[in-house]
C-alpha cells in the first residue's frame, strides 16, 4: 500500500491546476464561489473549454474521444476543479447517457450522438421519474406504442423532476412498451427530441426560489424507432446500469471540500463574543468533526473508485458513497448557514442577482441558507438514501431486509 501520490499523479495535478489557472474564466469562478447560477450559456462555454483540452469526457474510453482517466486522475481533477470554483459538468449526457450508449447502443447511435455530445450540440435531460413512480421507478406509466409500419413509437404520459429540462433539446426516457408482463420486463429506453410536436415542458419552482426542475408532458409524440437504445423491453437493465453511474458522481468530495473552505471563510469573518467565530471552541469542534469525516470519506471514495477502475462494477459501494457523501455535504451546508448568523436570513436570489442590492453583508454569505435548503435534494434524488440503505442491507443480508 502506498498512500502518497506518485510522481506522475503529482505531475497530473500540476497540469490540471495550471490549466484551471489559465483557462477557467474569472467571472465564471466568481459566480460559482458566490453561489450564483451559471446559466445555459456559461455552462456551454465551460464545456467547450474542457472539450478543446480533450477533458470534457474524463470517463469515456479514448476510442470515443474521452480522456480515459483512471480513478485517481478523476479524483484529482474533481478536487482541483472544486477548489478553483470551476463549474460542474452537466452530467446527464456526458456521464449518464454516454456510458449506456457505449455499452448497449448501436454503432450508428454512438457515431451520431457521442460527437454531438462533445461538441455541445445537444443538451440532454433525464426522464425517469413520474408523479407516481419515484422510488418505485419500475411502476412508471409513460407509454410508447409502435405504429403499424414499425417506423415510429407514439409516446404518451408525464415525466417529472426533470432537472434543467428547460435548457434541453433531448431527453432520455424510460417508457412502457409492454403492459402484460412483470413491471421491470416491459420497459424500454428511448431518446426523444424535445422539439417534437406534443412535448411540453412546465417549470417547477423549488423551495429556494430556483427553477431547476420541470414537468415534461408527452401527447402523441412521434419518436423514430432508431431512437430505441438496445432491445425493446430491456430498458430496465440499462436504467440500472445508468443509475450506478449517477450515484458515483453524487459522493461529491470536491464539493464538500469547497464547501468546508467556505464555512471557514465565513466563520473567520463572523464575530461572536468579540472574537472570530472560528475561534469559538464549540463551532470549531463541529467544523473539525465534519472535516475528519470528509478526510476519511475522500479516502473511501478513492478506495472504491480504484477498485471499480480495476474492473469490478461499482455496486453496493456506490450506495455507501452516496449515503455518506450526501450526509457530509448536507452537514457542511448546515454549518455554513449557522456560520452566517442573522445574515443567513435574506432571500438568496435577490441577494445573488444583486441588481438592486449590494450584498447586505461583507462576506457574500447571502446564498448559504438557500443552498442548505436546495441541497436537501441530495438525499432524495438519484435513489433516496433510504433506498440506498435498503440496497446495502439486501446485498449484505439477503432478500429479507
Amino acid at each position: 500500500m502506498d498512500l502518497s501520490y506518485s510522481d506522475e499523479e503529482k505531475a497530473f495535478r500540476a497540469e490540471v491546476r495550471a490549466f484551471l489557472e489559465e483557462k477557467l474564466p474569472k467571472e465564471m469562478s466568481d459566480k460559482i464561489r458566490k453561489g450564483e447560477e451559471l446559466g445555459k450559456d456559461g455552462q456551454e462555454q465551460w464545456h467547450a473549454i474542457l472539450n478543446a483540452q480533450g477533458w470534457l469526457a474524463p470517463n469515456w474510453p479514448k476510442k470515443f474521444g474521452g480522456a480515459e482517466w483512471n480513478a485517481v486522475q478523476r479524483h484529482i481533477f474533481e478536487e482541483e476543479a472544486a477548489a478553483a470554483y470551476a463549474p460542474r459538468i452537466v452530467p446527464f449526457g456526458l456521464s449518464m447517457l454516454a456510458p449506456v450508449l457505449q455499452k448497449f447502443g448501436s454503432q450508428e447511435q454512438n457515431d451520431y450522438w457521442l460527437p454531438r455530445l462533445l461538441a455541445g450540440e445537444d443538451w440532454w435531460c433525464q426522464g425517469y421519474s413520474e408523479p407516481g413512480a419515484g422510488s418505485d421507478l419500475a411502476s412508471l406509466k409513460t407509454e410508447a406504442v409502435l405504429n403499424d409500419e414499425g417506423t415510429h413509437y407514439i409516446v404518451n404520459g408525464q415525466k417529472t423532476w426533470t432537472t434543467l429540462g428547460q435548457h434541453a433539446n433531448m431527453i432520455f426516457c424510460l417508457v412502457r412498451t409492454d403492459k402484460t408482463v412483470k413491471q421491470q420486463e416491459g420497459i424500454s429506453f428511448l431518446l426523444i427530441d424535445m422539439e417534437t410536436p406534443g412535448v411540453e415542458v412546465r417549470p417547477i419552482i423549488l423551495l429556494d426560489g430556483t427553477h431547476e426542475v420541470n414537468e415534461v408532458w408527452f401527447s402523441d409524440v412521434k419518436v423514430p424507432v432508431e431512437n430505441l437504445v438496445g432491445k425493446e423491453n430491456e430498458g430496465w437493465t440499462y436504467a440500472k446500469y445508468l443509475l450506478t453511474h449517477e450515484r458515483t458522481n453524487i459522493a461529491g468530495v470536491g464539493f464538500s471540500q469547497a464547501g468546508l473552505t467556505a464555512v471557514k471563510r465565513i466563520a473567520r469573518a463572523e464575530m461572536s463574543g468579540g472574537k472570530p467565530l472560528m475561534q469559538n471552541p464549540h463551532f470549531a469542534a463541529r467544523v473539525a468533526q465534519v472535516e475528519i469525516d470528509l478526510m476519511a470519506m475522500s479516502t473511501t471514495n478513492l478506495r472504491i473508485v480504484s477498485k471499480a477502475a480495476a474492473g469490478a462494477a461499482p455496486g453496493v459501494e456506490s450506495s455507501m458513497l452516496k449515503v455518506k457523501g450526501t450526509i457530509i455535504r448536507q452537514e457542511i451546508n448546515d454549518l455554513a448557514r449557522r456560520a452566517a448568523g442573522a445574515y443567513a436570513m435574506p432571500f438568496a436570489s435577490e441577494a445573488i442577482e444583486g441588481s438592486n442590492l449590494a450584498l447586505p453583508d461583507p462576506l457574500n454569505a447571502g446564498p448559504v441558507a438557500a443552498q442548505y435548503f436546495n441541497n436537501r435534494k441530495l438525499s432524495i434524488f438519484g435513489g433516496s438514501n433510504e433506498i440506498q440503505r435498503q440496497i446495502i442491507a439486501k446485498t449484505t443480508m439477503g432478500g429479507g431486509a
Partner: protein
Amino acid sequence: MNFDLTEERQMLQDSLRRFLRDKYDTATRNKILESDTGFSGDIWNGLAELGVIGALFTEDQGGFGGAGFDIAVVFEELGRAGVVEPFLDTAILGGGLIADLGNEDQQAHVEELIGGALQVAFAHGEPTSRYDLNQVTSTAKVDGDNVVLNGRKAVVVNAENADMLIVSARESGEAGDENGISLFLVPADTKGITLQGYALLAGGRAAEVTLDDVTVPASARLGEAGKAFKAIEARVAAANVAICAETLGAMETATRLTREYLMTRKQFGKPIGTFQALAHRMSDLLIEMEQARSAVIVAAGNLEAEYKARETHISAAKNLLGRAGRLVAEDSIQMHGGIAMTQEYELAHIAKRIIMADHRFGDTDHHLERFIALAAA
C-alpha cells in the same frame, strides 16, 4: 400542577385558529410572500381586531394578557399557519420596549399599536454583533436638547413597514459593555436614515439600516440614558418564548403533513408509512414534538421568574427547539421526497420557518453556550 389553558386563553386559541384556518390558507399566504410589502394589511387588521396584539400586552399597558403563556398561545397558532406578518417585531420587541420603558407620551403609541394602526421595528443587531446583545457600536451623542445617532443596523425585520424604529445606540462604554446602551424612538422618515430592503427566505422583509447623523430630540429616549440593556434582554427573552412557540406550531404542521403523506403516498404497492425505515422516524418526530412542547411550556412559565431561572429556561428551550426543529424540518422533507422541495407545497414554507427561526436571537449553539455559562454562574 395543571397544564390546562385558562378559559380566556383557550378561547383566544380557538378563535385565532379558526380565523387562520379560514383566512390564511396556503394560496393566500403564498401570494403575501410574493408581494412587495411582504405582509397583508387586511390580515394584520383582522388579527388586531381579534385581539391578537392586545393579548401580548398586560392590562397596565392597555392589553389583556402579556404573560409568557399568552405569548406562547398566540405564537403557536401563528406558527401552525405559517404566518409571516411581523407580530414579533412590532408587538413583542418594538411595542414591548415602548411599553416597558416609555413615559406617558411614548406609551400612547402602545394603544395605537394594539389597535393595529402603528407598526414598529427593533433596530438592534449590527453587522458584527451576531447574537450578542451587548455588542452595540452605533453611537448616540447628546447635542444640546438633541441626540445624534450614527451607525449601521443589520437585518432589521419589518423596517420598511415600520412607522417608527426602536434604535439602540451607545452613549458610553465600548462594544461588549452592558452599561451605556440607550434606546431611541425614531420616526422612520427622520432625515439621515437609509434603508436597504430585501425579502427574507422564510417570508417577510428586512433591511439594512444606516444611521447618518440622525438627529432626534432627547425626549425620544426610552427610559434612562445608558440603562436599556436589562430591558432589551427581557424583551429578547419574551421574543425567544414567542419564537419557540411559533416553531412548535410549525413543527406540529410539519409532522401532521408528514403523517398524512406517509399514510396516503404509495410506492411499491403500499403506503410508504408501512416501511419501518419511515415509521420509526415518524415515531421519533412525535417523541421530539412532546419534548419541544414541554420546553416551550417551561420557558413560557418562567418568563416572569427571576433572571437566572428565566434565562436558563429560555436558553434551554431555544437549544432544544433548534435541535428538534431541525430534525422535524429535515426529516419531514426527506420522508416526502421531491414534492416537499417545491415552493408551492405547504411543507416547504413551514420547513423554512422552522429552520430560519434558529437565526433569530441566538441559534442552537449560542444558547447551548449560554446555558452552560448560566449554570456555571
